[in-house]
């Protein structure tokens, strides 16, 4: 008896299956691509990039002998969180005063920088007068000058500020602004870069807005203060964050200017845990972690502005 086998639909389907990708196999492949092409390498790199920061914190939570024990361990129990309390009363560093100095340095400098740059940038962007471009290019040219080149003259100029720190009117005889907050803050409050940055932003405010305000009887100052400033808040915020970060982390200028607790900042104060008797690494890294945390927090909170700020400064 011969019977004709029924067509093997099932098998044919399975055969077809192998050739024409189904939705499911496409999804699987894309998932594999993402995992291997992005998530795996990105995770490895992220671990490498973040490890020094984790290590800083981990060492701050160890005792000095644990820091140098071999083999190194990621975390030692118990975690010495008390370091973060003890450091505030440690006589070597005076971290309280130094945090205050750093905060004053970073805050005042940031506010003055944003305000003065906004003033100059507003005039350079919105007013038309002879020599405007000339002034703008000169301001821009100062960006080329590396700050470190000017350390020596700046130091001598700060020392020679007239009628300050025992100086006579010719700026001789005393120490001027050396080792004072004024000397720390004031010389650095303006940079060509910040004026350039805000000018580019002010240029984007439509002319009509300004004209309408003028017709409504707005004074010129009010156009700056009530229109230009509020409209450029994102750029002002970005500039403010950069300026704050820079001043908070600054090492070189305080190193040159500050010699006593009057103006010493956190980044300098950390060195106080190193002496001839050796280095108190646990406290040193606790201090380092304390000086880092505010900036990381600020960054996580305001990162939207930071990325906009960088892109804006470069893109235009």
């Amino acid at each position, binding site marked *: 008896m011969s019977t004709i086998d029924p067509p093997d639909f099932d098998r044919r389907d399975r055969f077809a299956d192998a050739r024409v990708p189904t939705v499911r196999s496409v999804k699987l492949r894309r998932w594999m691509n993402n995992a291997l092409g992005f998530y795996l390498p990105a995770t490895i790199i992220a671990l490498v990039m973040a490890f020094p920061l984790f290590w800083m914190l981990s060492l701050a939570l160890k005792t000095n002998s644990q820091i140098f024990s071999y083999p190194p361990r990621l975390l030692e129990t118990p975690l010495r969180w008390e370091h973060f309390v003890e450091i505030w009363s440690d006589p070597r560093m005076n971290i309280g005063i130094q945090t205050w100095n750093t905060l004053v340095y970073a805050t005042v400098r940031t506010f003055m920088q944003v305000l003065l740059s906004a*003033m100059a940038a507003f005039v350079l962007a919105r007013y038309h007068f002879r020599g405007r471009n000339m002034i703008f290019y000169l301001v821009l040219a100062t960006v080329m000058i590396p700050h470190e080149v000017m350390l020596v003259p700046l130091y001598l100029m700060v020392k020679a500020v007239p009628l300050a720190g025992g100086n006579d009117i010719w700026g001789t005889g005393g120490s001027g602004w050396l080792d004072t907050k004024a000397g720390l803050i004031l010389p650095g409050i303006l940079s060509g870069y910040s004026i350039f940055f805000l000018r580019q932003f002010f240029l984007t405010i439509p002319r009509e807005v300004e004209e309408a305000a003028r017709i409504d009887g707005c004074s010129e100052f009010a156009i700056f203060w009530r229109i230009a400033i509020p409209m450029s808040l994102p750029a002002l915020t970005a500039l403010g964050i950069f300026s704050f970060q820079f001043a908070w982390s600054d090492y070189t200028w305080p190193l040159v200017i500050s010699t006593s607790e009057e103006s010493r900042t956190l980044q300098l104060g950390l060195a106080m845990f190193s002496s001839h008797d050796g280095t108190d690494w646990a406290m040193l890294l606790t201090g380092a972690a304390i000086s880092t945390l505010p900036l990381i927090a600020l960054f996580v909170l305001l990162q939207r502005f930071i990325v906009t700020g960088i892109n804006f400064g470069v893109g235009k």
Partner: protein
Amino acid sequence: MTIKQQQLILGIVFLGIPLLWMLIWVVAPIFVVFYMSFTTYDVLSPMRWAGTWNYTDLWYDDLFWRAIGNTLYFTAVSLPAGVFLSLMLAVLVNRQLPFVGLFRTIFYMPVVTPLIAAALAWILFYETSAGMFNYTLDLLGISPVNWLNDQSTAMPAIIIMSVWKSLGYNMVIFLAALQSVPKELGEAAAIDGAGPVRRFWSITLPMLTPAMVYVVITSLIASFQVFAQVRVMTDGGPNNSTVTIVHYIYRTAFQNLQFGYASAMATIMFFLLIVASFVNLRLVGRRNVYD
């Protein structure tokens, strides 16, 4: 007051104060440093005219040449490595996937960390007997390296730390540039049969030229000025193998009180930077997108 009068007053005040301030604290120091490079001055005794003696002395100062060599070494390694790695990072995170923002944040975090705090953590990384690096080498069966205390490894150690510190910043710049590259260009090239590497090389990279110029110039200036991490991690040692130009300027001026001599170094460094920036503008800028 008329609008014109208001604008005149506002313009003079708003522009005058900042410009005067910049004139005093940004422009004047350049002339001061230039003038002082022709004098000898130690703060204690009056300034004396020295003609070009500072420059003659510099010419015969081995340590100065050493400092220039070390700075060029630092720049020659950290600049290409930094540019290449940050570009790769930017390409990696230039996609729309869940959690990509988290990775960007982590890659940027070293930039936010104060340099001194980071350098301190890295000193213990490089520690010879109990440091993480040597522990890892030990696991791989390699004998320990005396990282920061060995002439041949101290500079590479500082370079690795510096590249880690600044990768995130350049990544963000490249990322912004990558996102402005029109997708159609890549798609058209793909239809014409260009592979991914070829597409990156012939389409993406030329579009990145402005960002590239910016990154290279800013990194160049930054690496010529490398100082804080050197001061904290090695203070120029061992055997002057990590003395950089700014470190030597700092040492000469503020420790040896030779302000005239230090100013001569600063002047030379200034001109070196100007020349390097222009060369870079010509070299990188020549591959213009619109050619």
